[in-house]
């Protein structure tokens, strides 16, 4: 069977003085994607994001595996945020399979999720630092992230790809003495990230560089359907942990951070504030958690979903609202799994924000969108 090639990413015929730059995929200023940037002097006149270099077809693979063996696969899109990216799938599978979750497991999940959020944001922050040419801000988060990775490793046995959440709870109980270690390291972690202010967030050069660049207005943020820190930096107070609390978030005192500027600086500062909030949540959860009890509801070896039903669950991940749409037809494999990922939703803001910006602002605006190329490609 033959196909005619659909229109690909055709380069436009442009003016002589406009230079077309391929930023990526080997370029250090793009992640695993290509941004086709047309510049006129120092100004960007057009920008065309070209993701898909790490497209793996996770959604297709999910249709061939049962509800349990999907778990290691579906956390692959964002290995630094693997608990959160798995979370909506697990919630959805629980609803489709009809399983209840023990109370302690819910708290463990919340702790793991918040730790993972911090781990992700630290990684993101490290890249943001190096995109701005701030090598210290690459090294510090990359180092301090180890504190939390150590915790996650104690908790789940793996450093990045945990595969810890399963329908019905979590895989294993917390190790002994975990609460104390966790509290100590989280406290130190919070102290550390507060030290970033002097070098990074209150640095006048950084402020001058990222203020008023790539301004996303409140209307546009809503219209583009952005989410997470991008949305909250533009003045929309929307956090799923408050708006649609899942697991035990409604029993915890969760605050959210909103800024109104909508520029790169606000977008980069919100995740930092989120980390402090995460530390608060972890402390609360450690305090309120039942000290003992089951963490996993026992499951049949090869469970079957409800017949012909669909469920859409979403959680607040490190980048924003992450939804999972699962269609079941009553078999052991899901009929269709769709991840609605925040990176993909935020990507649409990129060409609109970069238009008219200077080339020097390209990396900061791009990375301040809290965009993770692998997640967008799935």
């Amino acid at each position, binding site marked *: 069977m033959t196909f005619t090639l659909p229109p690909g990413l055709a380069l436009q015929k442009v003016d002589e003085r406009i230079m077309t730059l391929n930023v990526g995929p080997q370029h250090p200023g793009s992640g695993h994607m290509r941004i086709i940037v047309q510049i006129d002097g120092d100004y960007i006149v057009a920008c065309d994001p070209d993701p898909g270099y790490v497209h793996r077809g996770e959604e297709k693979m999910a249709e061939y595996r049962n509800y349990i063996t999907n778990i290691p696969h579906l956390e692959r899109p964002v290995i630094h945020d693997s608990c959160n990216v798995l979370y909506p799938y697990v919630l959805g599978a629980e609803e489709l399979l009809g399983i209840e979750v023990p109370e302690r497991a819910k708290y463990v999940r919340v702790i793991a999720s918040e730790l993972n959020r911090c781990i992700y944001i630290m990684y993101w922050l490290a890249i943001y630092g190096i995109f701005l040419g701030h090598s210290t801000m690459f090294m510090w988060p990359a180092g301090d992230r180890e504190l939390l990775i150590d915790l996650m490793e104690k908790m789940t046995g793996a450093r990045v790809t945990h595969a810890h959440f399963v329908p019905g709870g979590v895989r294993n109980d917390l190790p002994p003495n975990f609460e104390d270690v966790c509290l100590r390291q989280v406290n130190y972690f919070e102290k550390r990230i507060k030290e970033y202010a002097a070098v990074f967030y209150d640095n006048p050069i950084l402020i001058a560089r990222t203020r008023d660049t790539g301004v996303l207005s409140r209307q546009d943020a809503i219209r583009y359907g952005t989410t997470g820190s991008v949305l909250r930096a533009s003045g929309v*107070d929307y956090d799923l942990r408050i708006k649609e*609390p899942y697991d035990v978030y409604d029993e915890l005192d969760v605050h959210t951070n909103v800024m109104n500027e909508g520029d790169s600086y606000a977008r980069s500062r919100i995740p930092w504030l989120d980390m402090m909030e995460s530390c608060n949540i972890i402390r609360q959860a450690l305090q309120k958690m039942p000290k003992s009890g089951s963490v996993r509801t026992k499951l049949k070896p090869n469970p079957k979903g409800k017949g012909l039903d669909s469920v859409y669950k979403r959680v607040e991940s490190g980048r924003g609202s992450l939804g999972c749409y699962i269609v079941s037809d009553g078999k052991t494999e899901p009929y*269709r799994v769709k991840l609605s990922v925040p990176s993909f939703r935020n990507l649409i803001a990129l060409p609109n924000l970069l238009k008219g910006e200077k080339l020097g602002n390209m990396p900061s605006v791009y990375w301040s969108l809290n965009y993770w190329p692998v997640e967008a490609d799935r």
Partner: protein
Amino acid sequence: MSTETEIPPADAKPEVATPPPKPAAKKPEETPVELPAFEKSISDKIVEKFGDKVEVGFVKEDRVRINVGRENVHEVAEFIRDGLNYDHVESVSGVDYPQDNEIEVVYHIGSYTDSSLARQILVLATRAQRETNPIPGNDATRLPTLRDIFYSVEFHEREVFEMFGVFFEGHPDNRRLLLPEDWADLPPLRKDFAIKGR
């Protein structure tokens, strides 16, 4: 639902900004027989407006599903935006049903501006005709685009186009997005595209 203000005062520093009060943790009782009231009112409004043109898929807690035919999806979406205050699309997913010879496209629509709708997701589903031998872009697998109503569907619809071959009429930029430029096989998320070895 929540009563907090949408926008904190402009001069508030992020560190000292007092967080909005915690939303009332409302957990509706488990009453499977009785449909949730608020969600029911939403579906009722749509049914009232369009009558037979729409079909209520299900009404669950926080989720309402509306099935629409492809000829009505545009006006229903317009009503959802203008009449019901939904303002963005979170996800556009295609689902392939070879046995019905149809491809379903599901829009998950949410709202940021209306705080009473913050929990709600309205699922708008429509179906396009499915071709056995698809020629993406040039066959009958077509739907009207919703990009002029919800700007946020732009990249999602491009993805559905390349993954399912559903051409969205009126979309200004209907190009490939994720797949390689030289992809010449079936649209990969169809059921008849099989992974090697399976």
